Structure formats: C-alpha cells, structure tokens
C-alpha cells in the first residue's frame, strides 16, 4: 500500500473498531485497532500519525476497561498519554487513567489524580472538565469514607445543572446514589437513584437508563429483585469471559493459519531460491565448459600453427641449404674434369647439413643430468678453431627448471652455437651462468666478426622460444665486436 492508501486504511480501521465496540464485538474491535496500529508503525512519525496512534491506544484502553482488565487499560492509556501534547486530550486521558484506577480499587491514587484534574480544570476554566473531576473526586472520597465528598458532588451537580447537559446531570445523580450507597445510607441512595432515573427518562437514552436502573435495582427492598440484578450483572461477566475465551481460540486459530501460510510462503521462497542456485550453477557450469572448450580449441590452433611454422622452416631449410647444394653438385658433375675427391667433399658438406637439420629438431632427453647434456652440446661445437669456455655452469641448480624450459634453453644455445659456427668466425666463446633466486641468467659472448642485428629466422626463433617460457633474451652485436646474448629464464 502506498502512503495515502495507508492513511485511509488507518482511518477506516479506527472507525470500524469504534463500531465494533459499540456492537459489543470487543475482540473484533481490538483486532481492528491492532491492525491500525501496525499500519501506523510503517508510516513516518508526524503529528497526525502520532495523534492517530494515541487515539488507537486510548481505544484499546477503553476496550480493556470494558473487559474489566484495568491494569492493561491503564497501560494503554499511559502509552497514549506519552504521544499527545494537547492539554485537552491529556486531561481526558488522565481522567480515563484515574477512573480505571478507581475501578481497580486503587482509590487513593484515583483520588489524588482527580484532585489534580480538578485544579487543572480550574486553571483551564473548563467547567465540564472541572465538574467531571469534582464528581469523580467526591465518589472516590465517598469510597474512602471521607464525608467531605458530598460537598464535591454537590458542587459538581450545581455546575452541571447550570451547564444543562442531561447525561452529565444523570451521571451526577447516579454518583450521589453510589456515594450514599457506599456510606450505607440506603435511604438517600435510593432517593438519588430515583432522581437519576427520572432525569434519564427525559433523554430516553437506553444505555443511560440501563446504567441508572442497575443501581436502582441494587437498592430495591425486595430481595428477589436485588438478586435478579446481581444475577444479570454476573451473567454479563460470565458472557464476557466466554466471549473472551472464544475470541482467544479464534485468534489462536488465525495465528496458526497465518503461521501455516507463512511457512508455505517460506517453502515457496526456498523453492525459488533453490531454483535460482541450481540455474546459477548450471550457468556457471556451462560457462566454464564453454571457456575450457574455447581454450582447448585455441591451444590446439596454436599448436597447429606452431607445427605449421616448424614445417615451413624445415622445408625452407631443405630448399635453401640442401636442394641448392645438390643442384650445384649435379651441375659440377655435368662438366668434365671434376675429381672424385672434390665431389665427395661437396657431398659430405651436404650430408653434414642434413645432419644439422635433423639435429636441430630431434628430441632431447632432459630428464637426465642437464648440466651434462649442456656440456655435451658445448663439446659438440668445440673444435680446433673454437674454444667454448664456461663459467659457473656447475653453480646452477637445473632441477629448479621445468622440463619444457630446459628444452627451450637447450634449443636456444644450440641455435646460438650454430650461428656462431656458420657465420661468426669466432675463436672464443664464453658462456657464463648465474643462479639468481629461482631465475637463471645465461650470458653468451663470442669474439667473432659480429653482425648488424637483424632479428630474423634463427634469432627470431630463439626469441619466440624464450618468450613462450616467459623468459627474456637480449642480443647485442656490432661489426667486429663479437656477438652477445643475455638470457634470463
């Protein structure tokens, strides 16, 4: 419900509660009032809402007074009292509290309260309030056997007579009667009761008449009549408590119903939550499957590409290095006068080249002692022309390096040595190693003729290899200044 609707609902509930109370449906009235209160809780706190709340509390207090539950009645009235700042309402509420105290037989508390209300009435110069306070004060005094009560009652009656409100005058006569009844002066009590009765007949208000008749009956000389009155009263009380019991059962049942409904709602919620989680899991699962498939596909593609590049490289090499040389030999053979030895020499060179190509691509077993494997590689490239000097190769812990990284290191060094042998004319190579935490630094340097750095083919290949294992490689070279490569893996 939005706000204006809520306000309207609260108003309607309050009216409903009033009607229900008048009809004697006390339980239903209470329910309506509580519902109104619940709605009010959700509204912002402003003066109007505060007033509405106070009115509902007051209503609840009066309901409980009707049910003879004075304690609760007082509590609700006091609650209402905290919410009002209008003096008129405040006085009305205080009067209600004092009246409930009186009914509860807390007579001296009631007397004090009425005395104070009387003073306030004087200050406010409100004769209705003053008269009511005085009347009640007199009644309370009477119950305390204080004879000064009679003058209070008289004063109140005088004020009411001059105001001329019939029901108030009836009230005064009634209270006089009750006062005298409490004093044990049945004669006078009866006289005032009859006065009240005749006054009440003027307005012919049934509830007033009933009220007056009750006291009149209780003062009757005939015992049977008196007993009848008492019986009616007690029957009313019994009915009230039966009603109350029934109401509380009905209330319990409704509570159960509400609880069951709530449970059902919770189940439904749980179900939908379960469904939500299930679908979330499903979505995540399919997403991860999708990612895995895509990754795999990409990996596969990458591998295929790598294979393709390798094949391309080998085929180019075969074409450039082998086929050209063989063609050259064929050419030579077509010309007379070429010695057998010369042809053999040439063929041997081609043979070596094919061996080089296969060596570059054959698998290497890095499971064994990797330092030994590297030293073998170095020994292979060493000959009378070139010395390859190593530094600190034994200080490196190759076990820290994963297999595929070892392969990369091997291939890169192989490529560097091959380049050195083919092009550099170097006589000295220094290969120094350094363990730096988990990283291994490898520095290659030769004293060859050097070159202008153009990263292509072989060097490009080494760079790709090192990059693929997330290492780094830096080349440095100048004509006649040798060639240098720094690798970090």
């Amino acid at each position, binding site marked *: 419900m939005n706000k204006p609707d809520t306000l309207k609902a609260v108003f309607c509930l309050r009216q409903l509660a009033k009607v229900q109370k008048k009809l004697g449906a006390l339980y239903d009235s209470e329910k309506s009032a509580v519902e109104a209160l619940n709605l009010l809780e959700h509204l912002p706190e402003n003066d109007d809402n505060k007033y509405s709340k106070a009115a509902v509390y007051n209503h609840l207090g009066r309901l409980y007074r009707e049910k003879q539950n004075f304690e609760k009645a007082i509590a609700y009235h006091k609650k209402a009292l905290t919410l009002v700042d209008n003096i008129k309402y405040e006085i009305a509420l205080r009067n209600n509290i004092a009246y409930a105290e009186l009914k509860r037989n807390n007579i001296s508390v009631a007397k004090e309260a009425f005395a104070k209300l009387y003073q306030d009435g004087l200050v406010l110069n409100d004769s209705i309030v003053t008269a009511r306070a005085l009347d009640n004060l007199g009644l309370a005094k009477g119950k305390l056997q204080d004879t000064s009560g009679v003058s209070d009652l008289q004063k109140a009656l005088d004020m009411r007579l001059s105001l001329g409100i019939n029901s108030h005058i009836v009230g005064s006569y009634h209270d006089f009667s009750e006062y005298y009844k409490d004093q044990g002066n049945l004669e006078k009590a009866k006289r005032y009761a009859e006065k009240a009765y005749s006054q009440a007949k003027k307005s012919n208000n049934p509830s007033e008449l009933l009220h007056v008749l009750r006291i009149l009956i209780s003062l009757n000389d005939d015992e049977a009549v008196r007993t009848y009155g008492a019986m009616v009263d007690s029957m009313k009380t019994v009915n009230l408590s039966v009603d109350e019991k029934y109401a509380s059962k009905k209330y319990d049942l409704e509570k159960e119903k509400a609880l069951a409904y709530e449970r059902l709602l919770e189940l439904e919620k749980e179900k939908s939550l379960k469904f939500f989680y299930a679908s979330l899991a499903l979505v995540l699962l399919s997403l991860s499957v999708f990612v895995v498939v895509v990754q795999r596909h990409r990996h596969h593609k990458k591998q295929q590409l790598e294979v393709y590049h390798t094949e391309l490289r080998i085929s180019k090499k075969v074409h450039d290095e082998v086929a050209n040389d063989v063609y050259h030999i064929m050419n030579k053979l077509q010309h007379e006068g070429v010695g057998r030895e010369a042809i*053999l020499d040439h*063929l*041997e060179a081609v*043979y070596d080249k094919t*061996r080089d190509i296969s*060596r570059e691509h*054959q698998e290497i*077993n890095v499971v*064994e002692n990797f330092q*030994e*494997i590297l*030293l*073998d590689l*170095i*020994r*292979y490239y*060493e000959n009378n022309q070139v*010395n*390859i*000097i*190593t*530094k*600190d*190769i*034994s200080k490196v812990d190759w076990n820290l390096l994963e297999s595929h990284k070892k392969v990369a290191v091997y291939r890169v060094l192989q490529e560097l040595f091959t380049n050195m042998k083919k092009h550099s004319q170097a*006589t*000295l190579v*220094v290969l*120094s190693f350094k363990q730096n935490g988990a990283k291994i630094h490898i*520095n290659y*340097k030769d*004293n060859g003729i050097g070159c202008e750095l153009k990263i292509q083919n072989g060097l490009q290949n080494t760079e790709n290899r090192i990059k693929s294992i997330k290492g780094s490689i830096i080349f440095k070279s100048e004509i006649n200044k*040798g060639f*240098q490569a720094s690798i970090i893996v």
Partner: protein
Amino acid sequence: MFKKVIVADDLISINLGIHNVLKTLKIGEVVSVQYCDDAYLKIKKSYQEQDPFDLLITDLSFKKDHRDQNYPSGEALVEALHQEFPDLKIIVYTIEDRIQRARKLVRQYGVKAYVCKGRKGLEELTEALNLVYKDQLYLSEQVAPALSKKSSLEVDDFDILIMKYLSDGLTQDQISQQLKDDNITPNSLSTIEKRLNKLRIQFKANNVIHLVAIVKDLGLI
C-alpha cells in the same frame, strides 16, 4: 678375427658396404637382417644351438613399417641383448652422433664401439672391428668426448680473480702476496703460473698481456 657376425640395418646398400668391409677382413659367416626382432631371434637361436654369434653390428634407427616390432630401435635391441647375452660384442654403426647417446650405450649397455656413418664411416668401422676384437673400445671422433675425462673449458672464480689482479697491474709475485693477505688458498706463485698457463691456452692468448686483453673484451673482468 671374428668368425660369426650378424648385421642389422634396414638399408640394403649400407648392409652391402658392411659386407664388403667384413669380406676384406675375411670373416667367414655373415648374416644380415633388416629388423631388430629378427636379429634378436637369430642371436637367441645361435646361443641355443651352442654356436653363438661373436659380434653384432647394428644401426640405431629403423624405419617403422607394417611389421610390429618388439624391439623398435637398435637401442631397445642392445638393451635386451646386454641383459641376456652379456658376452656378445656389439658395435653400433649409426648416423646418430649425439654424445649423450653414445655415452649411454657404451656405459650402460656395454657397447664396444660406436661408429658414426659418414664419409669415413667404413674406414672407421674397419678400425673398430680390429680394436673390438682385441677387447678395446672404439668411438668415432664426433662422439669421442663421450668418454674423455678431459675437463671442459671451465673457468672459476679463482681464475677470474687472478686475471682481475693482472689487469690491475699486479705482478705474479704481488698477486701471490695479495692472495696470502686475503687468506685465499691456493696462493703459491707456482699455482698462479700454472693457472695462467691453462688460461692462456683456453683463451688462445700468446702471453699474459694478450690474455688480459681478450678476457676484458669478453667481459669476464
């Protein structure tokens, strides 16, 4: 010379070459096979008949074809034979020239000779046959480092240190003194001289001054 030899190689032309070599050496019985499994079976049979082969000459790599093999490579064959018939002499004759492979075969599987196919392959094979017959090992030049104890051209911190002192202008006497002062051993003059000689050879330097220049160029000091 050997009396009964079996040759395993899947290339007939190479088989023929080997046959020629064996013929010149006047070896009586020569059997050729093109599959490792055949070689294994024939050798096993010869042992059962108490007329065993003296020698196996085998290639390492065999082309795979329609026949499934228990021993797909020469290495597998050699491994099995070494276990079962340890006194059978084996010469590996192959195109493969990896030092590692040669070392493994000679050290672990008791191969007597490792000959690389090449221009001089058959000459080397002849030499190998003669040596193996005399119970000696033979390795082709390419794979010779497999067994050589020759230390690699490794330089250590000590080498670097004395070259550093040299480049700082210290004489060999002064270096010796300096090492003594720093509590570094060895520090004798003769050790320093020996080390410098070794380094001069390693770095192909004509004299000590040349050595320092070379080492400096290479960025070692």
